[in-house]
C-alpha cells in the first residue's frame, strides 16, 4: 500500500501519573474516512489534541505524507494542512461568522493600511460566504455574530471553516453532536464531499449509526489503547458496541 497521508506511531501521552494514551498507532490515506470511537475516557479527545498539535505526545512519532513532523502548536498543524474541529469549542461567539472563518488567516486591506494590520472586512465577508457555500453550508449572513446563530448553524460554520481550509487532513470531533436528524445528514454529506476532494477525514463520534454510515475504516480506543482497527464493513452496530465496551475482545487486522 502507498504511503499513508497521515500516520502516528506508538503514541503515548501521560498527564502526571495518568496514562491517557498508551502506544497508539493509526494511519489514514487520502480520500479515506476513518471513524475513531471509544467510551468516555478512552483517550479520543487526547488523541485529537495530539493529532492537531494542541498537546504534545510524551512518546511516539507523527508522519505527514511520510515525513516526520513535530507539532509545537496548533498553528504548525494548520499550516501543514491538518485542520481540526474541536468539540463544542471551536468558535469565538462574539465574532462574526466571517471573522471566525478567517480567524488566524485574516486578509488585509491593500496598501499602507494593510501593512499596518488593517483588515479587508468586506472581502472576508463575501469570501467566507463563498467558502461555506462551496462546502455545502448555507449561512444567512456572514457578518452576523456567531452568538446569534442556532446551535446547528454554529456547528455548520465550524465544520465549514475546517473543511474549506483543510488541504490534507481534517479531524472532526463530534461534529454531529446536538444536531437534529436533517442537520446531521447535511454534516455527513459535507464529510463525504471532503473525502471526494481527496482529504483524509478522521471522524470522532458517539453516534455509532453515523460512524457506520460514512466511514471506510473504524479504529476503536479503549483505556488509551487501540483495541480494534478494521474496515467498517466488518462491523455491525452490535459488534462495534461490543468492541467499545470490551464485551468483545476482537483485534482485527
Amino acid at each position, binding site marked *: 500500500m502507498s504511503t499513508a497521508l497521515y500516520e502516528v506511531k506508538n503514541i503515548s501521552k501521560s498527564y502526571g501519573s495518568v496514562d491517557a494514551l498508551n502506544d497508539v498507532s493509526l494511519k489514514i490515506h487520502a480520500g479515506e474516512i476513518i471513524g475513531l470511537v471509544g467510551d468516555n475516557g478512552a483517550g479520543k479527545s487526547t488523541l485529537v489534541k495530539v493529532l492537531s498539535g494542541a498537546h504534545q505526545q510524551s512518546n511516539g512519532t507523527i508522519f505527514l505524507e511520510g515525513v516526520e513532523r513535530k507539532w509545537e502548536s496548533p498553528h504548525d498543524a494548520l499550516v501543514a494542512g491538518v485542520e481540526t474541529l474541536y468539540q463544542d*469549542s471551536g468558535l469565538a461567539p*462574539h465574532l462574526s461568522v466571517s471573522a471566525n472563518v478567517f480567524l488566524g488567516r485574516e486578509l488585509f486591506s491593500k496598501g499602507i493600511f494593510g501593512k499596518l494590520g488593517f483588515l479587508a472586512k468586506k472581502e472576508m465577508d463575501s469570501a467566507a460566504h463563498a467558502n461555506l457555500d462551496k462546502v455545502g453550508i448555507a449561512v444567512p449572513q456572514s457578518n452576523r455574530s456567531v452568538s446569534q446563530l442556532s446551535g446547528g448553524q454554529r456547528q455548520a460554520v465550524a465544520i465549514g471553516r475546517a473543511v474549506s481550509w483543510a488541504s490534507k487532513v481534517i479531524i472532526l470531533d463530534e461534529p454531529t453532536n446536538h444536531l437534529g436528524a436533517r442537520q446531521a445528514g447535511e454534516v455527513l454529506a459535507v464529510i463525504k464531499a471532503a473525502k471526494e476532494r481527496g482529504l483524509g477525514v478522521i471522524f470522532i463520534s458517539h453516534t455509532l449509526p453515523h460512524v457506520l454510515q460514512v466511514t471506510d475504516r473504524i479504529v476503536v480506543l479503549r483505556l488509551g489503547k487501540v483495541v480494534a482497527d478494521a474496515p467498517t464493513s466488518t462491523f455491525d452496530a452490535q459488534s462495534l458496541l461490543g468492541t467499545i465496551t470490551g464485551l468483545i475482545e476482537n483485534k482485527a487486522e
Partner: protein
Amino acid sequence: MATIATRAKSILANQQALLLIVLLVMVAFFTSRNHIFFSNAVFGNIISDWAPIVLIAIGETFVIISGGIDLSVGSTVAISGVVAAFAMRSLTTNGTSPTTTLILGVLVSAGVGFLVGAINAFLITKTNVVPFIATLVTMGAGSGLAIVFTGGGPIGGGPDQAIQLSVPKVGPFSYPGLGIVAVVVALGLFLHKARFGRYTYAIGSNEFAARAAGINTKRHLAKIYILSGILAGLSGYYYYLRLGCGAPTSGLGGELQAIAAVVIGGAALSGGEGRISGTVLGALILTTVTSGLIIINVAANWKQVVVAILIAAAVLLQEARTKGSSSKFLANLFTKKK
C-alpha cells in the same frame, strides 16, 4: 406601547447612543443648577481631567476585552510620573534645553510604563498567574515604590514650560490633550479595524478557539498588557505636565476609574465585548459628574454614589442584552400589565 418599547429597545441596544443621552442630560442638569457649568473654563477642566483617565481606560479596554484585568494602571501613572520627574530634574540641572528635557520625559514615562506592562505580561503569560493577582502585585509594588522614591512629596525642578503646555489652546483641549485624542482615535481604529483588535476580541471570546485557530494567544496577551502599561506611563506624564511636578499620589485609584469607564462604556468583564467609543464616553461621564457636583456645590463624596449607580445601570443593561432578554426586560419596564 409596543412602538415605544421597540424604539427604546433600539436605543438601549446601542450603548453609545445611550451614553450620549446620559451625558447630555447631565450637562443640562448641571447647567440648570448653575449656569457657570456651561462655559469653556469648565469644559476645559473636564477635558483636562478626562485626558489622563481616558488613556488608562483605553488600555483597560483592550485588557478587559481580552478577558483580563489590569489593576496596576493607577500605580503605573504614579511611578512613571515620578521617575520622569527625577529624570527631568537632573536633565534641567545639567543644563539640557527644556524641549529636549520634555521629549526625554515622555520617553522615560512611556519606558517605565512599558516595564510595568512587561512585568505583568511575564507574570501572566510565562508564570500563568491570573491577571487579577499579577496586576495586584505590580499595583502594590508600583505605588509603594513611588512613595519610597519620593518620600511622599512631589518632585519638581523640571522645565517651567511643562505647566504651560497643559493650558487649553484649541477649544477645551490643550496640545497634550489633542495628542491624547489622536492616540485614542488611532487605538480605536486598531481595535475595531485591524487584526490586533480582532485577536483581542477572539481571545476574550474563546481563548481555546483563538489558540486552535493558530493565534499565539500568549504573545498577543503580552502585547496587550504592555500597551496598557505604556498608556499608563503616558498618563503619568500628562499629570506631570498638569502639576508641573511628579506626585506619588497622581493616578491614585486610577485603575478603578478606568474599569468604571470601561464598564459604563458597555464592555463585559467576561471578555469579548466592548468599544473604544463607549470607553471614551464612559470616562467623559465620570469626569463630568466630578466637575458638575463640585460646581453645583454637592459634597464630593456623592460622586462615588452617582458612579456606583451608573455602573449598576450599565451592568444591568449588559446582563439584559447578553442574555438576549432585552425585549422581555424592556417589556417589563415599558408596559404596565397589572
